[in-house]
């Protein structure tokens, strides 16, 4: 009861105003992303309306804006090209189902394996892809288009110095549309890109054969859409958490994204997710509650349905200017400066994520490479925490090796290499009580050492293996028990 009031009605005036600002900024984006995906603008506009409205109720992060996004649109290109819109709608619904499953399985916790550098890489790659997607509109065109785009960018960035009461992207669109109509310029406009909505969305079931073959076509797409959608949504949720200093429910957000995508698929919309740029605009304009997202969706639909004829007149150059702004606003410019200061490994992870994403146009693959790379670097670093000391005892009859640190696949070779097998000695004591054996590789490395010494006729005594191998959680599961901490930290 209290949270219901707090989520919805604690910030009414600002939420409604911010909703209008966001709706105005969403229209060009939804159209632009439909064009990226290769579908009519109405698919993106219906999706944006539907996702924004549904997520207002089902989402776990009040104040975050979700709609049709570039990250998702890029993944659908080949599906639309090869199989058509109906399969896209079916894939959208399946994406929603998978996201709900992910929410119930609490897969949101996997986000902790996505390091800061991967997130930065994701955001930068997204900005670059949004920018690249604008290039077709800027190649093989007359100088009018360049002039219009430049003028558009000028208005977007300079108009806020005049007044911040009216959204500058809206001013850009209105001015450029008026110029194009008055001068009767022969340049491409939104109407040339496909059908716009002429009515409120209606419920429809995708026209596809319900068989295994269809599933085989759409499932891979749905899987990547699910991953990318949840990644971007959870990342954005964290950003909004930080900006507003309030917590969010990540698992509810996963389920909410799923419900919104299912709804979008059934009204003829494409899959979407949370949007970083739009969420920043919403927070900046004072939006905090669920009402802001709902207002954005409803205003968007009203404007598009009732101003459809005018929307068709918007020159593509105006949209390109808005999208360049989104790309610039999304890119993490600080990360370029940080390259010098941050450790090289994190820069490499960030760049790997960017490069793979830009090459494949698939954020899921980029993130996968980034996560694997950060895993390698981490293993490499931790593998260096291994110290082996040796000293002779009993007047040169015995040598004692004292191992401390982490022994696992990345450090096992170094572990083996630190023993002197050529030494002629009666007995070797290997004290591993201050070491942690993390996996089978570590244990077999120790076996190897023992066998090698025995071949030389040396007697081997291993001390403290029980303590050392207590960290092999798979086998003993000590982490769940009392005193596990002492075992791990104590020696």
């Amino acid at each position, binding site marked *: 009861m209290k949270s219901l009031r707090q989520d919805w009605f604690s910030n009414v005036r600002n939420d409604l105003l911010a909703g209008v600002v966001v709706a*105005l900024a969403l229209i060009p984006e939804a159209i632009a992303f439909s064009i990226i995906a290769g579908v009519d603008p109405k698919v993106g506009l219906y999706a944006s309306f539907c996702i924004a409205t549904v997520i207002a109720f089902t989402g776990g992060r009040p104040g975050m804006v979700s709609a049709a996004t570039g990250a998702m649109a890029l993944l659908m290109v080949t599906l639309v090209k090869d199989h058509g819109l109906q399969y896209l709608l079916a894939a959208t619904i399946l994406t929603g189902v998978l996201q709900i499953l992910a929410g119930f399985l609490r897969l949101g916790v996997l986000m902790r394996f996505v390091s800061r550098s991967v997130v930065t890489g994701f955001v930068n790659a997204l900005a670059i892809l949004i920018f690249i997607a604008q290039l077709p509109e800027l190649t093989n065109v007359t100088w009018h288009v360049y002039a219009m785009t430049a003028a558009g960018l000028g208005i977007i*960035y300079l108009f806020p110095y005049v007044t911040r009461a009216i959204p500058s992207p809206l001013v850009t669109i209105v001015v450029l549309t008026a110029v194009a109509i008055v001068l009767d310029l022969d340049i491409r406009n939104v109407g040339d890109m496909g059908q716009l909505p002429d009515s409120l969305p209606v419920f429809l079931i995708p026209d596809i054969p319900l068989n295994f073959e269809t599933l085989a076509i759409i499932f891979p797409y749905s899987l990547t859409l699910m991953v990318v959608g949840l990644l971007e949504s959870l990342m954005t949720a964290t950003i909004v958490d930080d900006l507003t200093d*309030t917590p969010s429910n990540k698992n509810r957000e996963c389920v909410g994204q799923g419900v919104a995508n299912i709804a979008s698929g059934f009204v003829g919309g494409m899959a979407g997710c949370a949007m970083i740029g739009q969420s920043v605009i919403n927070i*900046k304009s004072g939006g905090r509650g669920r009402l802001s997202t709902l207002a954005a969706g409803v205003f968007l639909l009203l404007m598009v349905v009732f101003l459809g004829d005018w929307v068709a007149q918007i020159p593509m150059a105006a949209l390109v200017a808005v999208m360049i702004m989104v790309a610039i606003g*999304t890119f993490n410019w600080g990360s370029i400066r940080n390259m010098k200061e941050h450790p090289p490994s994190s820069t490499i992870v960030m760049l790997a994520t960017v490069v793979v994403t830009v090459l494949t146009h698939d954020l899921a693959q980029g993130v996968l490479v980034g996560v694997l790379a950060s895993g390698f670097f981490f293993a490499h670093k931790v593998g260096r925490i291994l110290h082996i000391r040796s000293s002779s005892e009993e007047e040169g009859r015995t040598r004692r090796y004292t191992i401390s640190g982490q022994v696992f696949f990345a450090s096992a070779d170094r572990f083996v290499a630190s023993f002197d097998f050529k030494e002629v000695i009666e007995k070797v004591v290997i004290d591993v009580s201050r070491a942690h054996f993390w996996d089978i590789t570590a244990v077999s490395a120790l076996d190897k050492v023992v066998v090698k010494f025995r071949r030389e006729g040396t007697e081997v005594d291993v001390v403290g293996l029980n303590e050392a191998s207590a960290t092999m959680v798979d086998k003993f599961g000590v982490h769940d028990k009392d005193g596990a901490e002492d075992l791990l930290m104590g020696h």
Partner: protein
Amino acid sequence: MNKQDKKVLACVDQSHFADTVADYAAWAARRLDAPLEFLHVIDRHLEQGSGEDHSGAIGINAQEHLLSNLSDKDAAIARAKREQGRIFLNRLRERALAAGAPSADMRQRHGALDDTLAEQEDSVRLFVFGRRGASAETTQRDLGRNVERVVRAVHKPILTVTEGFKEPARVMLAFDGTAVTRKGVDMIANSPLFKGLPIHIVMAGNESADAPKQIAWAKDALTAAGFEVVADILPGDPEAVIAREIKARNIDMLLMGAYAHSPLRALVFGSKTTDLLRAATIPTLLLR
């Protein structure tokens, strides 16, 4: 924690009711020989945006700029409120010490009032709380909007006060035989808070069969604890009867059970506690 170490927590906001809260809290702390702490809760209203910038434009490093803007703004507000609250609390602390509180401490916390009190509850023996607060100047209600929420959030006795301090000399217990008021009888019997004061036990409403037995039990329990007790069963509407008797007998403080029913039931049937709090204009100790 030892029961003796548990504190009297005076919850104040920046209104003139705070002086009364401080006086009663000092009185209670003196009688209980308990440490007194003043709590000022600063609600930051994070759910509200500022919304001056509707430009819709995002430039280079938009997110970092926005984050530093918002946190700078929050920081400035928090600093100003903190300083203001500190000076205000210091004044109340002096006042309580002058009124004879054995010790007085102060604390400011961020958060919602009810959540904060629920968190603090374990170390508290008695809450003291104004029935109206800072918004009383601007609204007409005779019971502040926080009262019911706060009372429901905690499970320790709460002394809710109105304006103006008068050292309690005669105390009335609104007794209805329920578990919570029986617990109240035990509490009075064992607590030094009312030691030496005459206690009036009033049972109002339609007489039930075992009412005399219950009130006799209460009277015996308090008499055994050394109190001077007057016990009566009076027919009529409880609020009206109790409000009338308070005036007639010149009572200074009322004790009663509070909000035993669910909020939903209160929404439909109204709450006896709320009605009584409106009707009785004297400080009221609510038993949970």
